[in-house]
């Protein structure tokens, strides 16, 4: 099927965080989800949150080695959003007993469990990073997130040479690791 190869290409793009592919998927699916959320007691902001959450879940799924999507992107996103929205409604106590719409869905519970676990890990990492304090936080962010090289970092933070900066980076990293794992293992 022609649609299939097209969708494969889009998913590949998404896996590489290619904004063009993200935009196409976004444009093709957002309105449907927005309509669904709006028709079921939601707001525009909630529609955006839920949709982006689902996109992230799909993105994470596309990262795994054994990744195959056995249904259309549209069906997958709809299923995830529906699940997420039902859950959110229940949490907020706004659940009215029935949700409109009988579109095709696929089972996404397992994926969502992985996704939630991931989210929890990110929260721990976020907390650990934020409790590090400066300049540790910025130094690590510069090296591991912005992928700056050691010389540039040394210059930016005012270390006399790259080796000193590197030493400092490792000290910070050890602290971060300790903070992260203390939380992480509790979480387990």
């Amino acid at each position, binding site marked *: 099927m022609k649609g299939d190869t097209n969708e494969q290409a889009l998913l590949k793009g998404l896996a590489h*965080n290619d*904004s063009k592919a*993200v*935009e196409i998927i*976004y*444009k*093709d699916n*957002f*309105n*449907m989800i*927005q*309509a669904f959320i*709006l*028709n079921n*007691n*939601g*707001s*525009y902001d909630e529609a*955006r949150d839920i949709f*982006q959450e689902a*996109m*992230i879940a799909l*993105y994470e799924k596309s*990262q795994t080695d054994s990744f195959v999507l056995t249904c259309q992107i*549209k069906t997958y996103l709809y299923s995830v959003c529906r699940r997420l929205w*039902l859950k959110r409604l229940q949490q907020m106590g706004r*659940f009215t*007993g*029935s*949700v*409109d*719409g*009988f*579109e*095709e*869905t696929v089972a996404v519970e397992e994926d969502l469990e992985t996704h939630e676990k*991931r989210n929890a*890990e*990110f929260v721990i*990492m*976020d907390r650990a990073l934020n409790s590090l304090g400066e300049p540790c936080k910025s130094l690590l962010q510069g090296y*591991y*997130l912005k992928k700056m090289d050691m010389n540039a970092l040394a210059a930016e933070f005012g270390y006399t040479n790259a080796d000193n900066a*590197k*030493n400092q980076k*490792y*000290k910070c*990293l*050890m602290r971060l*690791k300790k903070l*992260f*794992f203390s939380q992480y293992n509790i979480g387990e």
Partner: protein
Amino acid sequence: MDDILLLDAIERYLSGEMSPEERAYFENLRNTTPEIDQMVVEHNMFLHQIADYSANIQIKQTLHEVHQNLLERGDLNEGGALSPKGKVIQFFNKYKRVTAIAASVGGVIALFISGLAMYFSTAVNDPKLEQLGKDLEVVKKNQQYQGDIINEVTSKIPINARLLSGGSGFLVDVKGYIVTNAHILKGTGAIVVNSKGKEFKSSIVLIDHVKDLAILKINDEEYESIKSIPYTIQKNNSDLGEEIFTLGYPRNEIVYGMGYLSAKSGFNGDSLSYQIQISANPGNSGGPVFNKNGEVIGVLSTKQAQADGVTFAVKSKNIHSIIEDLKKSDTAFQRVKLPNKSTLKGVERKVQINKLEDCVYFVKAYGK
């Protein structure tokens, strides 16, 4: 200090920056010292964690940017107010151009007519009056012409339309009239697929959101009407406990399900529908609910989300009433006739299904 050196070594080892000799030495060290091995594993996991964390931040960033871009270009809209009004606002935004055109055409005509009226009002018996009538005819024709253009644009949409939703539907007239749920038809049109997988173009001829029913008409040259429909549409209410079954398309293939009628009213006492005990899945919407004689007693529509098997079906007498509405709406539909002969009574279920599946269609709604 030693820790730092070790960490540096591990990081270089994991990123593959070590020279072959150094690597061999380090691997040997790993083999002989479990603590170091453990550290490598742990650090590797930690680096992955950081990488994932960083990727997560980046994808969020991308999503945010894409959302803003699309908003600016008007591909998305978040028109202000909250939920229940959302639908109306969306509709307004969708059709505001058409509305604007219609309003300005209306305005021009109003000015034109009032101008003419003022001009001619002094001489009522003037022969020019006739001319006015003609002019009005011209205006009317123009209007009609404009109307035609608007209609034509919408009917061409299927070329690059997207599928929006799907469900089931079933024949109520051999000429190709299909009853389904209104909520399935989200977009501007629909196609139907029969149990053999063949697709037909169709148009929405009537939609009733209160009853949640809609009628589609197949208009496709390839459609060959079947000789007769083997079921009737019940006018009376059915009884509690009656055995029922359904056919529908929760997947791309026709699926059979069986259950019983569990209450004479629907969700929250809704008297338009029945509660039935049957396992229904998304995609079953719009499918027929048959009694054991193979007569249609309802149209499967919704299910209660937190309860298992609690499903609701619109009562079949509503089909009779929307068919009446349809006949009233246009003389072209005068000849629509609901089937009046049920031929499946006392027949084995397998045979019933065999006959019925030709009449149950997969409905796919599309839109821009």
